[in-house]
């Protein structure tokens, strides 16, 4: 056995130089990615298969309907919406379930005791959720493109909508994970907020086809803008101008990030 090299009479200031903030952030990010990577079947394959089943069923059921936009038939119209809906649900699920699980298992103390700041927590959880969102979205598009040809009108807008939306939902997941003290709370959040808002966001239809009340209501749903803007990236046509969708998605992200960072900085619900 060789001798343990414990710091003996090191001056604490000199001693502190051996730590790196960046390593802390990278480790947490890697750990969060590893967490869903170990169960890819549940975290990526399952949601992709579900979304593709929607595509199959709706494409069959709605066959022969009039194009939603000129030159865009229903199946084409459906793909971007379904991709964005899957991104929304999985970005949310990634950060919220990870945090809630650690809280319930009690192993969140390992993170809480570590010298990780609010920004590092925030960036690590959001990055990991975005990695999962990229995997889910690329898998879906790869399969869908075999059957449905899709144009690519505005790639930058597409990327911006993807990042803003994925990040927003990752942050919302963090907030939900911080607030929830049991899985029931998280399930309620998913079932009563995320799922209804994503189904009522115009994934399966253009909001122009809705009765006036629901048409108006859709315009207060951030998910509607995320999907509409994402669709614009492909077709160059959408229900509202791309600038409005970008503004909503960015505004939503800023609002949620402010709330989330405040929670992390003050230790809200995390440090009793």
């Amino acid at each position, binding site marked *: 056995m060789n001798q343990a090299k414990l710091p003996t009479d090191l001056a604490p200031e000199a001693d502190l130089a051996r730590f790196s903030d960046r390593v802390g952030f990278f480790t947490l990010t890697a750990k969060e990615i590893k967490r869903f990577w170990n169960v890819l079947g549940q975290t990526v394959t399952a949601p992709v298969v579900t979304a593709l089943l929607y595509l199959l069923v709706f494409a069959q059921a709605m066959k022969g309907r009039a194009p939603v936009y000129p030159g865009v038939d229903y199946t084409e119209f459906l793909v971007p919406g379904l991709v964005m809906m899957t991104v929304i649900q999985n970005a949310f699920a990634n950060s919220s379930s990870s945090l809630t699980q650690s809280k319930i298992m009690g192993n969140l103390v390992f993170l809480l005791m*570590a010298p990780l700041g609010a920004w590092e927590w925030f960036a690590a959880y959001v990055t990991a959720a975005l990695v999962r969102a990229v995997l889910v979205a690329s898998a879906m598009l790869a399969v869908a493109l075999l059957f449905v040809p899709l144009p690519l009108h505005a790639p930058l807008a597409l990327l911006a909508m993807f990042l803003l939306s994925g990040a927003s939902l990752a942050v919302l997941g963090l907030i939900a994970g911080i607030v929830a003290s049991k899985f029931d709370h998280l399930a309620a959040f998913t079932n009563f907020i995320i799922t209804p808002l994503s189904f009522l966001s115009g994934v399966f239809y253009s909001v122009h086809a809705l009765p006036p009340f629901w048409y108006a209501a859709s315009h207060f749903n951030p998910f509607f803008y995320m999907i509409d803007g994402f669709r614009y990236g492909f077709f160059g046509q959408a229900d509202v101008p791309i600038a409005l969708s970008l503004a909503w998605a960015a505004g939503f992200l800023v609002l949620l990030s402010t709330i989330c960072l405040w929670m992390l900085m003050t230790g809200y619900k995390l440090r009793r």
Partner: protein
Amino acid sequence: MNTSPTDALSIDGVRKAYGKVQALDGVGFNIRRGEFFGLLGPNGAGKSTLINIIAGLVRADQGRIGVLGHDTVRDWRSARRLIGVVPQELVFDPFFKVVDMLRIQAGYYGCGRESWPWIDEMLVKLDLDSKRNASMRTLSGGMKRRVLIAQALVHRPPVVILDEPTAGVDVELRRTLWGFMSELHAKGTTVVLTTHYLEEAQDLCERIAIIDKGKVRVIETTAQLLNRHPFRFLRIKLANEGLLPESLRPLVSGEKNGSIELRLDREKHPISGVFTALRAAGLDLEDVHTREPDLEDIFIELTHDHSRPAVNGGVR
């Protein structure tokens, strides 16, 4: 009191209430660098609450704590890097292997690959080497406890706090842990230990604080604590059947297997006085045995029986 860099821990006026329960009611003391310090007290005394505040898991309502001069709130990043805390609860992440768990924890502290040899060394020292690639969920309780200890040390903190590391641990492992803690201490690490095994504290700790109901009852070196106890114990076995003289009866503190234990005040009840009284009553002794008080007697004195006079040097 201020946060002095010469102290490993400086705790100043810390108060914490959980609803109506005042878990900590103005706790303040300093722990010097390199000390082996015992934090004792009955269940619910507030030990874990204090440790959790030091670790940054719980926020104090009032008061300040410094780790080697770094305030745990204002300068939290440095303070957290300088301590390692073994929590009381047996928590673990079931999704990772032992060695990965330790590397991840080192990473959280900002330590990269350079910490891996030290992790391997700890796995050997804590007899976990055969389990390095086992999933956390497959470990026994005692093994999880050891991983928890290794996890607190991955970043080689100069101050280590162990909240009941030997609770529910078998005799052999307890000895391993004592050796491990002594070794850390010998290398200059400040070690703070809480335990309900008082012989453990008596053997290992240089200085001890006893807290009860959120207040420090006493804080002294272990030797002082043992010496200042005003009593000693005398166990006698009478050779013939007979009643103890009236004057000795109030001193009886226990009776076992025909022996009687008397609790004698060092000043007021010299042992010779007992013998004189016994002879006067015509009683012969078959066996005599004296016992110095141990930490357990002092602990009971301080935490269970407040009607008796407090030990000198008691802190209010």
